[in-house]
């Protein structure tokens, strides 16, 4: 069988993947980059990492073409240009998401260890700027004071080992 007679497995596979993708996610025209990124994130795939991996792979492919003295196909050139890492706006967004992820994870971790952490802190300082607000009624200030007292009680109701005190 000559090269020309061989079935184009790449094209068949690409068509199958395109069909699967269309069935699951809809026509590519209906989805923008932001939504695609969110769908990937929902599947725990970091879009920037995926993009970088594709860029590396296509870059190696382009180098292989060059090493053989062949011209790099136009579509491959286009893919490399599209995936080239750079200081784009989306990079700033990715950085923002990274910062948010760190902050959220820290907070969730702290919330999980709350009973133990409460035993280590001698006193809780609660935001109390509301007490100086002229536009708040005495009734509202009292409500907020009650809530603040309740938070303080949460600390007092924790045993030194982090477990809740049993109320009789």
């Amino acid at each position, binding site marked *: 069988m000559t090269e020309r007679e061989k079935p184009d497995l790449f094209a068949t596979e690409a068509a199958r993947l395109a069909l699967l993708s269309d069935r699951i996610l809809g026509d590519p025209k*209906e989805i*923008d*980059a*932001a*939504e695609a990124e*969110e*769908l990937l*994130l*929902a599947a725990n795939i970091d879009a920037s990492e995926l993009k970088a991996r594709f860029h590396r792979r296509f870059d190696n492919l382009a180098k292989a073409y060059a090493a053989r003295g062949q011209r790099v196909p136009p579509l491959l050139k286009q893919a490399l240009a599209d995936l080239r890492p750079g200081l784009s*706006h989306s990079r700033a*967004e990715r950085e*923002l*998401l990274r*910062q*948010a*992820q760190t*902050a*959220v*994870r820290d*907070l*969730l971790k*702290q*919330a999980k260890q*709350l009973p133990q*952490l*409460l035993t280590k*802190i001698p006193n*809780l*300082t*609660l*935001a109390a*700027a*509301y007490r100086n*607000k002229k*536009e*708040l*009624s005495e*009734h*509202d200030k009292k*409500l*907020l004071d009650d*809530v*603040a007292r*309740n*938070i303080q009680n*949460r600390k007092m109701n924790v045993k030194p080992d982090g477990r809740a005190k049993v109320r009789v």
Partner: protein
Amino acid sequence: MTRLTKGAAYGRVLARELRVGPGNLSRIAPRLGLEIREVNAEGFDGALIRARELALGAIVIRKSIREAGRKNFTLAHEIGHFLLPGHDQTELICTKADVGNWGDGAKEIEREADEFAAELLMPSALVQRIIRSAAPSLQLIEKIASQFHTSLSAAAWRYCDLAKERCAIVWSGDERIDWSKRSETFALSLRKGTPLNKATYAFRAFAGQAVPKQPQEVPANGWISANDLAENAKLWEQSKALPAYGSVISLLWLQP
């Protein structure tokens, strides 16, 4: 494409980290070290009382907020204050005007908390699918509000935040534009405080007159300066009176 804001980034990450469906706030708050208390407040809709030293606090919500969607949005807004950097040293008592005030004059931290709440309750990927499912209409915005358990004003803002069509939402009070939100492609000006033109359905809705239940073509100069408008452009309007708020909501849609 809409720019990802700080508030939206934190809202999106929180939903992803907790792996809970949109709107499930009663499950989210305890996992952040927050208690939720409903109280008979007189002068505020929501408040956050927090400890400085660690992730511990309480969100206080006014019991008498009528609309469940509005209550949910206020709760999400306060979670935003708890989570967002730079919100920890500030005043955290939010009046009705602070929550879901989409006007240009909103304080920055309140706007960030609103953007956080919008993304947490109405994830862009899910809302975009609804937006694409039908032509612009107030019914579509009401569907978003109902499906994501949020207020109509927040859903309307979100709609124009994500829509690709040339549309805008106008919220009017006292027969004047209170705030507006334009989609990225709606480049025409809608100024806050502008009195409603008598030729608009919004004006008729204020007057208690019947208005069409679907978008209708209207004289564009009722809303927009004729100089700003392309010669063949057509403006469609759908307005609805909201007696409980003393307001009228209008959807404007430019075609082609």
